[in-house]
């Protein structure tokens, strides 16, 4: 695959060349933190960030997305007929997505792109997008990607990997989409030799970890019924901070909103932390306690997902939930407790 060198002095000109063929998105500083947004003409992404406050999942899975429009006005010929909401699916490029967030897209894809069902809204945006990742040279103390099936130079889910080499970037194409984007730059080719050294140095900086090795073989019900959940869940506020900031959380709620005679069917992010998330139309709520909701979140990420897909945990180690939880519930601590119990639970199953 193509590898090119982009001098930083040529960075904004290079972006302009790409802009000719793509709408550009990238991290931008909003007051005190970075978030991904569409870049206006001439605007460069601010790549001096560790990671964004919210994950870039909203670029393919907006927090609120209109799916269908309809009219309830019987004077309209097509009244009561839902119509697909017009969207801009022209080529887009995300510049500066972190490898963890790109790997998260690959995990989320397992949900939105299956043999049985293909989610057109997610897939149309995903397919229209070329993901240019920025390798992590200075990970946060709360990053634990290397034990979450990912890494600061992980390539999964990316089309291009961009590596900062002080006065220049090395850009390595990883897919055909990535090659096409790099061809627009007209920059000169180089080798990928520098990437490996930088990768080893970056991986060595990650000291935090998530412990999950015993969970795959562990008895699910033993974990479910374990006594540890009261202590883990006590502080939880059941807010949506962890799920909304998480790059791998994909749950949504579908709503109809009608104003006078015009209506939309839309979907909005939902959160398993919210009591209403699991309320049945009868009013019964099978997950009617804080403990059961907190347990669901961790069991889904670290056990149910593992059992269902056999593709590791549903977490990429970005550390956002750790950094942002208002009451300091830390998935690294929770995983260690579950893992310890998982070891005991596995022995119990074998012994029985």
């Amino acid at each position, binding site marked *: 695959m193509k590898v090119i060198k982009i001098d930083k002095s040529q960075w904004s000109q290079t972006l302009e060349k790409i802009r000719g063929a793509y709408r550009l998105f990238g991290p931008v500083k*909003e*007051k*005190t*933190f970075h978030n991904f947004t569409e870049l206006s003409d001439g605007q460069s992404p601010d790549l001096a960030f*560790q990671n964004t*406050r*919210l994950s870039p999942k909203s670029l393919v899975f907006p*927090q*609120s997305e209109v799916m269908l429009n309809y009219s309830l006005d019987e004077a309209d010929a097509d009244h009561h007929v839902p119509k697909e909401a017009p969207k801009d699916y022209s080529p887009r490029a995300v510049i500066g997505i972190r490898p963890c967030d790109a790997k998260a897209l690959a995990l989320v894809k397992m949900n939105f792109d299956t043999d049985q069902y293909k989610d057109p809204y997610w897939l149309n945006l995903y397919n229209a997008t070329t993901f240019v990742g920025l390798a992590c040279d*200075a990970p*946060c*103390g*709360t990053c634990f990607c290397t034990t979450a099936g990912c890494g600061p130079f992980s390539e999964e889910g990316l089309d291009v990997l961009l590596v900062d080499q002080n006065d220049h970037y090395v850009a390595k194409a990883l897919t055909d989409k990535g090659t096409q984007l790099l061809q627009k730059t007209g920059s000169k080719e180089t080798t990928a030799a520098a990437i490996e050294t930088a990768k080893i140095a970056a991986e060595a900086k990650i000291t935090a970890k998530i412990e999950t090795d015993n969970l795959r073989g562990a008895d699910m019900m033993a974990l479910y019924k374990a006594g540890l959940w009261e*202590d883990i869940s*006590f*502080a939880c*506020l*059941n*807010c*949506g*901070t962890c799920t*909304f*900031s998480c790059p791998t959380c994909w749950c949504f*709620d579908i*709503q109809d*909103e009608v104003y006078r005679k015009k209506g939309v069917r*839309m979907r*909005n992010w939902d*959160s398993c932390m*919210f*009591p*209403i998330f699991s*309320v049945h139309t009868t009013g019964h709520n099978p997950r009617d306690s804080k403990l059961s909701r907190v347990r669901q979140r961790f069991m889904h990420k670290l056990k149910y997902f593992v059992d269902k897909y056999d593709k590791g945990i549903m977490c990429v180690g970005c550390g956002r939930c*750790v*950094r*942002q939880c*208002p*009451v*300091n*519930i*830390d998935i*690294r*601590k929770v995983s260690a407790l579950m893992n310890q119990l998982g070891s005991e639970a596995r022995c119990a199953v074998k012994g029985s």
Partner: protein
Amino acid sequence: MSTYTDKIREIAQRLLKECRVEMVIGFRQGSMPMMNEPCFVRKPEEVDRLVWDSNCGINLANYLTNRKEKIGIVAKGCDSRNIVTHILENKVKREQLVIIGVPCQGMIDKRKIAASIQGEILAVSETGGQIKVKSAGGEKSFNKNEVLQQNCSVCVHRNPVIHDEMVAAPVAEQTDVDQYADVNAIEAMSTEERWEFFEKLLAPCIRCYACRNACPLCYCPTCFVDESKPQWVGKSQDPMDVRTFHFLRAFHCAGRCTDCGACERACPVGINMRLLTKKLNKDCLELYGWQAGLNLDSRPALDVYKANDPEDFIH
């Protein structure tokens, strides 16, 4: 601060050993700088997990709602006022509680510190009135008073208003503070300016409801934004729905809010929604001479009628 921690542990151990309480609610050491985690302790031998420092800003009264056990609870000034409010609103009974009062010297604002530090914060320690911050960019010291949460910097009820035990002698209350300077500034704006101000204030909201859920007042079994039969409020990011949530929640806290700051502290995107509740606190003070949760003997301003209530709007 370590003397506070020692005393809290000593009291908690005694209460548990003497079976005066079934559990003690307090804070344990967090896994990140400037973060502690609310926790409970049920066994006397586990009290060593309890800590106290300037990162205990979450309001523990929030963890009492509808509990039936006999509980020892660590309470700084604002927590104690919310415990009073909880008792008045029948969310917990006075006789269930042993209140371990903490004379509060204010909580530090981690965002203020992060904003004046280069790179990631690696460790924060506290000695006397000095906060020492170790970051990727080096070390920096702050005078604690410079980095207090804004509500703590203007707090006039640092000592618990109700307690059964005290971890130290009361601290001097602040008297020379301008409590409502921020609200006054908003009141002075024109209608258009104010609208624009609120629009900008609430624009980053992601509707995670951390503010509501961190608030001890927000204990409704089903919040109005979560009602589905019928549904009152849209669920999208429509600014009108976002504003409806914040404004209505604030009104629901009128005459009840103690300005503990838990809402602002919990917000993942740094919105100061306290400005809304604070305006209503100011109104309650000016109209009725009322401050929430100061004692168990008077009813809250909005659930009582007095013959001399101001009624200018009727005249």
